[in-house]
C-alpha cells in the first residue's frame, strides 16, 4: 500500500499538496467567501449577523466619508504609482550603468523596502512633526518660509506627505525589479543602434522601453496592488485624519470594522475594494502587456 502510494504520481501529489491546501483553503479561500457574505449582514463584534441584503452597500454609496475614502484611495494609488514608476525606472537606469561599488549601491537602495513599514513610517511621522520637523527647520534657516509647515494637519499637505512616504518606500522595489529586467537586455542592441546613429533618448525609447515592457507590466501590477490596499503607512501617520482627508478604503474598513465593531460594514467596505482592485490590476497588466504584443514581444 505504502509502496503503491510512493509510486503513484497523483496520490503522492495530492498528499504533498495537503498542508498548503488545508491552510490556504481554510484561512484564505474560506475567509474570502466569508468576507463577502459578512458584507451582506449586520454582524457586529460578538454577535453573528442577520442577512440584510444590499443595505450596507446602499448606505456606503451615499456615505460622504466612504466617497472621500474612495477618492483618496484612487488619488493615492494613481499619483504614488506614477511617481514610483518614473523614479524607479530612472534609478534602475542609473544603477545599470557601470558603477564602482555596484553591489553596495544595490544593497543600500533596497533598505527602505526591507525594514518594517510601520517603523519607517514612525520616522516619517517625526520628520513631519508640526513643531520640530527638520524640513521646516532647514527651510526656515534658508529663509524660504517663516512659519513651520503643518505637514499632517492640513488635508492636502497630509495627502501629499503620505504619498511622499509611500513613494520613498516603494521606489526600491520598482528600481531593483526593473534593474533585473535591464540586465537581460543584450548590450549588442545598444551598440547596433549607436552605429546607426541613435541618440541616447532614441536608444531608451526604441530599445530599452519595448524590451522592458513585459517586466514593467508585472512590476507595476504588484505596485498598484500594494498601493491600493495600503494600510500601515496611513494608520501610523494620520489614522485617516485630518477630517478623514487621508482615509483609504483599507483604513476606513479597519476603523468601522474593528474599533467601531461593525464587522458587516467593514467587510462591505473591503468587498467594495475588490472590483476596483481587479480593474486596476487588469488595466496595468493587460494595458501594458498588449503594448508588448503590438511591439512584437514574445509573450
Amino acid at each position: 500500500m505504502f509502496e503503491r502510494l510512493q509510486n503513484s504520481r497523483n496520490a503522492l501529489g495530492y498528499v504533498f499538496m495537503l498542508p498548503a491546501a488545508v491552510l490556504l483553503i481554510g484561512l484564505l479561500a474560506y475567509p474570502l467567501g466569508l468576507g463577502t457574505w459578512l458584507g451582506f449582514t449586520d454582524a457586529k463584534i460578538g454577535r453573528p449577523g442577520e442577512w440584510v441584503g444590499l443595505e450596507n452597500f446602499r448606505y456606503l454609496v451615499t456615505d460622504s466619508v466612504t466617497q472621500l475614502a474612495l477618492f483618496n484611495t484612487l488619488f493615492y494609488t494613481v499619483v504614488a504609482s506614477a511617481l514610483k514608476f518614473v523614479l524607479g525606472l530612472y534609478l534602475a537606469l542609473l544603477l545599470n550603468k557601470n558603477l564602482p561599488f555596484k553591489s553596495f549601491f544595490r544593497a543600500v537602495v533596497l533598505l527602505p523596502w526591507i525594514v518594517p513599514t510601520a517603523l519607517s513610517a514612525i520616522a516619517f511621522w517625526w520628520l513631519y512633526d508640526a513643531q520640530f520637523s527638520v524640513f521646516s527647520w532647514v527651510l526656515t534657516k534658508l529663509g524660504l518660509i517663516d512659519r513651520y509647515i503643518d505637514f499632517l494637519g492640513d488635508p492636502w499637505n497630509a495627502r501629499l506627505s503620505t504619498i511622499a512616504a509611500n513613494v520613498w518606500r516603494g521606489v526600491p522595489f520598482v528600481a531593483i525589479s526593473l534593474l533585473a529586467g535591464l540586465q537581460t537586455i543584450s548590450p549588442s542592441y545598444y551598440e547596433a543602434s549607436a552605429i546607426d546613429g541613435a541618440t541616447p533618448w532614441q536608444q531608451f525609447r526604441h530599445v530599452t522601453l519595448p524590451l522592458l515592457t513585459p517586466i514593467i507590466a508585472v512590476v507595476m501590477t504588484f505596485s498598484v496592488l500594494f498601493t491600493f490596499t495600503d494600510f500601515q503607512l496611513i494608520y501610523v501617520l494620520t489614522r485617516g485624519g485630518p477630517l478623514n482627508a487621508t482615509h483609504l478604503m483599507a483604513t476606513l474598513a479597519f476603523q468601522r470594522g474593528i474599533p467601531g465593531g461593525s464587522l458587516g460594514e467593514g467587510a462591505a467596505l473591503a468587498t467594495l475594494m475588490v472590483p476596483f482592485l481587479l480593474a486596476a490590476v487588469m488595466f496595468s497588466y493587460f494595458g501594458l502587456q498588449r503594448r508588448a504584443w503590438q511591439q512584437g514581444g514574445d509573450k
Partner: protein
Amino acid sequence: MSSPNDDVVGMDYLQSLPRRWVTIYIPLGIFVFVLLFPFYWMVVTSVKPNADLLSRDANPFWTLKPTLAHFHKLLFETPYPEWLWNTVVVSVVSTALSLVAAVLAAYAIERLRFQGAKPAGGAIFLAYLVPPSILFIPLSTIIFQLGLFDTRMALILSYPTFLIPFCTWLLMGYFRSIPFELEECALIDGASRWQILIKIVLPLAVPGLISAGIFAFTLSWNEFIYALTFVSSSENKTVPVGVVTELVEGDVYHWGALMAGALLGSLPVAFIYSFFVEHYVSGMTGSVKE
C-alpha cells in the same frame, strides 16, 4: 545567478568623466541621500538627549552629548524585549511552517505533475494576489471562533496565508531549473520520490530555499495589519504593532525612545538581509522573470 552582462563595460568608455558626474553620480547621490536620510534621522534622534530634541535652536543634524538613555528606557521600562521575542517566535515558526508546506507543494506541482497541477499552480499565484487588507475582518471572526484571539498562534497560523503562495511560486521556479535527468537516474537506481526530494532536489535548491526563507522571514517580521487586529494585550504584541500602539500613548511623544524602538526593530531584518543580499536580489530577479 548573476547576470551574464554584469562585467560588460559596453560603450561606457565613450563617456567622459565630467559627463558621468552630471548624468550618473550626482543623481545617484541624491537618490541615495533621500533613501537613507530617514535612517540617519532615526539614529541621530535615538541618541539625542531630550533637551536637544525639543529645542528649535540646536542644530538638529547633530548632537554634542549623545546618550543611550532612550535605549535604556526602551529595554528596561517598556515591554519592548517581550515584543521582540514574540516577533522572533512568530516569524521563525511561521516561516518554517510555510517553507515545509511550500517545498512539498512546489515539488508536487512542478515535478510530480499530478492531475490538476497546472490549475493548482494558477490558484497559488492568485492566492498571492489576495491582499491582507480585505481578509483581516473575516479572518478575525475565524480566529475568534477557533479560540485563538490574542495569542501568538493566531499570527503563526495566519501569516502562512501570504507566505505559502509566495514561497511556492519562488520555489517552483527553482525546481524547474533542476534537470529531469537527475531524477530519472535516481528513479532507475530505485530511489523513492521522497528520497529524491530530500537527497537530490532540496540540496540543489538551497539558494532558492535561502531566498524564500529570507523573504518569508522579512515579510512576517514586517507584518502589521493581522498583528494589529488579532492581538490586543501588550505581552502578545509584535514589535511594529507594539511600537505604534503602546509607545505613542499620552500627550508627550517620547521621540527618542520611539526612534530607538524603530531602529532596533529594523536592525534584525537589515542585518540578515545584508548577509544574503546577493541571494535576495537574485531571488527577486528570478521571481520577476517569470
